[in-house]
């Protein structure tokens, strides 16, 4: 649609970028949920499981954290397709970013669980609470406070990582921006606009992370 001119052209660009921004948010939220879903049992097994389980999870976390997310996406999207497992690009992006993120998320959850002093869980056990009651009533409420600031920072990282999904043709903002550049040759304007869109989403999150950090800091010093 490069034949559009003047104001129409700019409106067209804005409309396309808005569509892409929405897909970006979908991929980010999808992979965040996926990460947390995978990470929760991993973190629990890490703090409760036997040495073999711990070692396996350790390897999982180390491998996923040491390999670039782009490489992981390519393995899932292009690699698995040759084995007959053909995933859509958005599905592949959510699984790839989610699996990658689960390694970071598991570490965040584990740190949150381990931040609750052992004495408290032992005291709760001594008072006759069951294992899951101890987790739900004693560990979880405190762990959540510890986990929220790093989890917000992790979400910002995840949002930025979604841009890499353009390389597996997921129609998020980066991919649509590249197509727009091919149509209009307005690359500086378009890529700057894309950065602005990312900033509009990430700045409130950066603020939130800072606020949560200060609040958790106050909570810790009160303890």
């Amino acid at each position, binding site marked *: 649609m490069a034949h559009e001119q003047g104001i129409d052209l700019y409106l067209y660009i804005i409309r396309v970028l808005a569509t892409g921004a929405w897909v970006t948010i979908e991929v980010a939220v999808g992979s965040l949920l996926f990460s947390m879903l995978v990470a929760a049992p991993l973190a629990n097994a890490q703090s409760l499981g036997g040495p073999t389980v711990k070692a396996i999870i350790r390897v999982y976390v180390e491998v996923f954290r040491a390999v670039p997310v782009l*490489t992981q996406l390519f393995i899932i999207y292009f690699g698995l397709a040759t084995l007959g497992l053909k995933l859509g690009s958005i599905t592949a992006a959510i699984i790839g970013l989610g699996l990658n993120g689960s390694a970071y998320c598991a570490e965040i959850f584990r740190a949150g669980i381990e931040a609750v002093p052992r004495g408290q869980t032992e005291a709760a056990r001594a008072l006759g609470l069951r294992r899951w009651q101890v987790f739900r009533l004693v560990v979880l409420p405190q762990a959540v406070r510890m986990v929220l600031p790093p989890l917000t920072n992790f979400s910002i990282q995840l949002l930025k990582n979604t841009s890499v999904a353009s390389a597996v043709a997921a129609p998020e903002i*980066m991919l649509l921006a590249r197509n727009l550049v091919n149509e209009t040759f307005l690359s500086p304007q378009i890529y700057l606009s894309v950065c602005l869109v990312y900033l509009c989403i990430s700045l409130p999150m950066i603020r939130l992370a800072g606020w949560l950090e200060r609040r958790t800091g106050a909570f810790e010093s009160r303890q």
Partner: protein
Amino acid sequence: MMKHLADWLPLLAHGALQSAKMMLIAYVIALVFGAVLMLMRRSRFRLISGIAGIYITAIRGTPVLAQLFFIYFGLAEMGLVMSSWQAAIIGLGGNSAAYVAEIYRAGIESVSRGQIEAARSMGLRRFQITRLVVLPQMVTVVLPPLANQAVVLIKETSVASLIAAPELMHEARDLAAEFYMPLELYLLAGLMYLMLAFPLSVLARHLEARLRIER
């Protein structure tokens, strides 16, 4: 796959070497430019600290891929043409510099004001305070996150393949297209990134554990 391995490995190893080189150059840029940014951020002049603040926030709030596209394609459109290698080094270095500046700042702020005032009252000069009081303590705070930033950077070099900069991922994509064996090639590339990044992340954790005891 085995019969191809002899063809692939030298090419992939060459790519890994280029990734390591790209990362090292970008890291040095980040360490130096990060220090400049931190000093600007702490400047008494509002304008200078404001510019540094905006730069740091803008970099941290946007993906490195968007930054690379702007530097490589956007600036070329505006008349500043760079090779993809140059764009990758400037983009990755400039990106990490924002994070490094924050690491330095946290390091300086970890030294309590009381110590600086005490050193002052003992008659030490500003430069002596920086050299004898602030820097030695700052180093212990700053080293572990700096090592972590190196891990982030080596992984981010993979993104430079999307502006066709010559490095490991670019090599793997070329080979995957030629042999149509993407699974094998990207797994091999992943293994090579693991070999590059894992020692660094072990170092980071080692520093973290050691320096914590010292404090």
